[in-house]
């Protein structure tokens, strides 16, 4: 796993995003923010793709944090079901080819 981190304050600046929004994402467990011994807050670089997605939903689609939370979990399930579907299709193809 990539352990690169981005300073929370940098992240706010780069994305020009409200702190309150990221904090509420953290409260919902959608992003995790770590704190070092100097009380600096960091976001894992690995989480930025998800964060950008949440920003698009929040700012472009006007979906609130509760909605984002529900959507995120639903999409997770869709992804898992898609993987299961792919696996089953591969299995069907295998048995058909026998």
């Amino acid at each position, binding site marked *: 796993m990539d352990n690169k981190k981005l300073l929370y304050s940098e992240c706010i600046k*780069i994305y020009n995003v409200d702190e309150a929004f990221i904090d509420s994402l953290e409260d919902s467990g959608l992003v995790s923010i770590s704190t070092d011994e100097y009380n600096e807050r960091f976001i894992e670089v690995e989480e930025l*793709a998800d964060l950008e997605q949440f920003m*698009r939903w929040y700012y472009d689609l006007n979906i609130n944090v509760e909605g984002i939370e529900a959507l995120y979990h639903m*999409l997770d399930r869709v992804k898992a079901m898609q993987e299961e579907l*792919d696996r089953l*299709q*591969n299995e069907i193809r295998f048995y058909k080819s026998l």
Partner: protein
Amino acid sequence: MAYIDYYKILGLNRSASAEDIKKAYRKLARKLHPDLNPNDKDAQQRFQELNEANEVLSDPEKRAKYDKFGENWEHGEEYEKAQQQYRQQQQAWGDQQTGGRTFFTEGDFSEDDFSDFFRSMFGSGFSQRTQSHGTRKYKGGDYQAELHLTMRQAMQTHQQTIAVDGKNIRITIPAGVEDGQKIRLSGYGQQGVNGGPNGDLYITFLIDEDAKFKRLGDDLYMQLTINLYTAVLGGDVTVTTIDGQQLKMKVQPGTQPGTKARLKGKGFPVYKKDGQAGDLYVTLNVRIPENLTQREKELFTLLSNIGQ
């Protein structure tokens, strides 16, 4: 280039208010946004159309111009061409007359506005407006690509070069990728907006079928034909695995056609687990002798009589 009815895309009529446009856009964007429709090319296409429609109709200036030219946008393009020609002539001749301007412009838009209008409707204007109106940085769009591999290619970690947006990218494909499996290459998608990071490249692997081996997960299946005598009396046969290894396999006396033997760890490599592999299942088929000689017939008859 065909005329695009932006109102139709948003499901509105021409009298729609700015608030109606905003609401219709958000409603459709929630439905068609690529984040919410992964792998749906149709939704992606419709979302692009929706964005373009919103780009024009949510901007009062662009909307006014769009409404004015509407289906006759081609004439507008002719105007612009004529205007460009005119400007070139003016430059070439050093003519200081400005009367031409009133000839080419209609209403109250300037030359620059006019060309912006067409750019915004049919291409690059979208990003320009986004850049000038928005300050937030956005990640660029993701690319989706498919890569065909043979089963034998998929069982080895190897490198391949693929062309994306005119650039060659060298990727390492880990052994054991499955048919339909998708990997993400961060930063190889579309360029970010307002200096945001690039999008990602998603590659879906399509594994071609193999004539000899069938794959189910990490296990491989193959058929092996043995002769009647080995099936009856037992013996050793040679099995060639997918990576070309020659393995000796014991056949038990009295082996029935369709018997399955398992060769542990001789199947497909497990994805991202070095040194681990599934099993190879060998289904044994028995070849019945044909065109028997007289002597063979006599011996089979003898056996048959003994058996009865």
